């Protein structure tokens, strides 16, 4: 029973354009959300997070948007760069819970 869903397994975008990755969740107890980036043969690396008290968090080229009523979050990468080609995982946690629930990931390919 997957509580975090990334329905797009892959995304191809031209260098310099915006990448938009989507994530939906079903557990209304989730109040902390993260995005991780993963290169082949490496572990996931933390990218950006957002608490449910906010609806937007920005860090350089990366912005995460949270829509609690829709149980939806998205990650915007602008401008996209070749080094952004990786698998991106959405993750969520409930209050007072160490456990992270992950989505299946979206593979982003940035074309030159």
């Amino acid at each position: 029973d997957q509580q975090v869903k990334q329905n797009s397994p892959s995304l191809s975008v031209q260098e310099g354009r915006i990448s938009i990755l989507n994530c939906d969740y079903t557990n209304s107890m989730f109040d902390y959300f993260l995005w991780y980036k993963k290169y082949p043969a490496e572990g996931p690396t933390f990218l950006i997070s957002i608490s449910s008290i906010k609806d937007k968090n920005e860090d350089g080229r990366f912005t995460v948007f949270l829509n609690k009523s829709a149980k939806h979050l998205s990650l915007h990468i602008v401008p996209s760069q070749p080094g952004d080609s990786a698998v991106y995982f959405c993750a969520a946690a409930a209050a007072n819970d160490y456990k992270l629930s992950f989505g299946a990931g979206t593979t982003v390919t940035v074309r030159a």
Partner: protein
Amino acid sequence: DTAVSQTPKYLVTQMGNDKSIKCEQNLGHDTMYWYKQDSKKFLKIMFSYNNKELIINETVPNRFSPKSPDKAHLNLHINSLELGDSAVYFCASSQGNLRQPQHFGDGTRLSIL
């Protein structure tokens, strides 16, 4: 400087064998985790230790036994390996504050023949 290191990186073994995967973190974190990434690429939590105490124990076969000798180490021992245990196992750590991100090792790819 490797923050979270796992050994071995690759492990190929026969069904029925017993094997261990080691994990060490040098970040000074007090919480460590084991995740399994299956063929469908989902990362699923297996265990977590906080200050050497087990705090998460998901529904995994009791052939899997974590051991935390100290805060910087969390090892995973697997008895009587089965074909379905083939996966990538990731170790992670975080500081006790629940709103701190987890830092992952590079994974151990376990293949059962």
